[in-house]
């Protein structure tokens, strides 16, 4: 109470200088300086080359694949993640605790391990791949394989953003609606889901951001065919190996700027979420 009477610019707590100093120095050394080198390098290429690079068919195809698949994966994760969060937060069943703990596995598991095991599973001679092959579906080395890998790495994001909100949701609103005679589906649609939408959006955007840059889990299962199944991070590596540093820097900078914009979106969504929750 006393604190709120103080003018905002006057700080009572110590440690501002030290904390901010550490933060800025470290951030500068590890993030800002290296990334500026990248952008400067890309800028060195000059507008005509930058345009030529970013509009070449191969680069565009890679962007379409990376962004397109990431978007699809984020949508899948939004749907299934929501369902998983719902089931984990609201129901009781055997194995719930185990399932809850294991949702974080894609966060804890190295992407390379996910990559080789998914490649093994969905190869035409793999457990799932052989079954799918009989149905005429190929997963490995097609964009579908990329999609599955991206769903895997993005799985926890929506679940972990929605779960806490679901758990903290006030059941009184639902109970009031019940007492007022609303049907279950209506209650869900009008009372429960609306506050969850920002959470789902945040989670899905996080999953999307993670998926566009994903390398380790995708590289084992993607076909790497230029113009068809080649993801952007691989294209960057290929350019580097061809000594096309400028080309690599230009594409990387494009990704960087796209990621930055996404981040701004995520952060504003999270700010909106906090307002919703009154935190």
């Amino acid at each position, binding site marked *: 109470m006393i*604190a709120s009477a103080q003018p905002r*610019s006057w*700080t*009572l*707590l*110590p440690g501002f200088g030290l*904390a*901010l100093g*550490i933060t800025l120095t*470290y*951030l500068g050394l*590890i*993030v800002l*300086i*290296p*990334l500026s*080198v990248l952008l400067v390098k890309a800028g060195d290429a000059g507008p005509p080359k930058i345009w030529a690079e970013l509009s070449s068919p191969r680069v565009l195809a890679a962007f379409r694949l990376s962004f397109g698949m990431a978007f699809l994966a984020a949508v899948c994760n939004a749907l*299934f993640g929501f*369902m*998983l969060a719902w*089931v984990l937060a*609201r129901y009781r069943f055997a194995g719930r605790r185990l*399932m*809850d*703990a*294991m949702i974080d596995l894609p966060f*804890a*598991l*190295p*992407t*390379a*391990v996910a990559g*080789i*095991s998914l490649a093994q599973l969905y190869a035409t001679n*793999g457990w*799932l791949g052989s079954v799918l092959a009989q149905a005429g579906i190929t997963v490995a080395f097609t964009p579908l394989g990329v999609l599955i890998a991206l769903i*895997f790495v993005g*799985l926890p994001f929506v679940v972990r953003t929605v779960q*806490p909100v679901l758990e903290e949701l006030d*059941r009184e609103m639902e109970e009031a609606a*019940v007492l007022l005679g609303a049907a279950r589906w209506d209650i869900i649609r009008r009372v429960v889901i609306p506050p969850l939408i920002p959470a789902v959006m945040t989670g899905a955007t996080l999953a999307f*951001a993670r998926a566009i*840059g*994903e*390398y*380790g889990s995708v590289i084992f299962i993607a076909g790497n065919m230029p113009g068809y199944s080649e993801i*952007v*991070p*691989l294209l*960057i*590596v290929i350019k*580097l190996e061809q000594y096309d540093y400028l080309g690599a820097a230009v594409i*990387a900078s494009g990704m960087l700027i796209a*990621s930055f914009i*996404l*981040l*701004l979106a995520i*952060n504003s969504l*999270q700010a909106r979420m*906090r307002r919703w929750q009154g935190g």
Partner: protein
Amino acid sequence: MARLKASSVAAGQTLPLSESRGVRAALITIAVVFFVFFLLLPLIVVFAEALRQGFHAYWAGLRDPETLAAIRLTLLTAILVVPINTVFGIAAAWAITKFTFAGKNLLITLIDVPFSVSPVIGGMVFVLLFGLPGVLGPWLAAHDIKIVFAVPGVIIATLFVTLPFVARELIPLMQKQGTDQEEAAIMLGANGLQTFLRITLPNIKWGLLYGVLLCNGRAIGEFGAVAVVSGHIMGLTNTMPLHVEVLYNDFNFVAAFAVASLLVMMAFATLVLKAVLESRAAPRSAGLP
């Protein structure tokens, strides 16, 4: 989870407080099926392949000197990277959430950049900076200092990709908690360190733990950034995930999956630790990832 007490309901009336049995069963089934197919099966495959030729072959695959070197490097990386990024995360969260200053939102976004940028780019920027044709390259070469294509490069690239994890967990959490308690402590005569250790830390410990575990998981498992920066020197600059790829590419599938299974077990241990510690405490504080 509050439930309407039966006693407050008129006799004979059934209230749709939850979904019907059938819907619930269906949802649970779908969720479990999804979980099994997308999460469980890949894990089972790892162990099935690792043990395909029996336990002896599995064990032999792990005892190879180059594998041991990879394990050492991975552990060394984690032990260096996690504390550094934890200190950074705490410092950044303290500065951002307990004070007001201009550019705060920009700072938060900048901290998040390594999270959303492709790890390949994360590795590449250091090669461009410290490599021979890079800005600092000639100076480093002249002084015989090796950063990229040597262990320091691996550590720095991992620092980059794991930088945001602790901060991301702490910032929303500490923002929610506000500054009242700390200010009260200061006015009661505590100094900054005491305030932090006795007031702030207990409040944030679950968010901090989760952030540390995520940071650790990523530090151990990072592949893309390290692949660009490591130089693939067997026995020297290969981390465990890289070594998995090396073994896989040399037709040593059992050994590749054996090392992968080690990584799965490390990930499991992390999750079990988190679950155990959390179950000993109060309900989860809603820190957003």
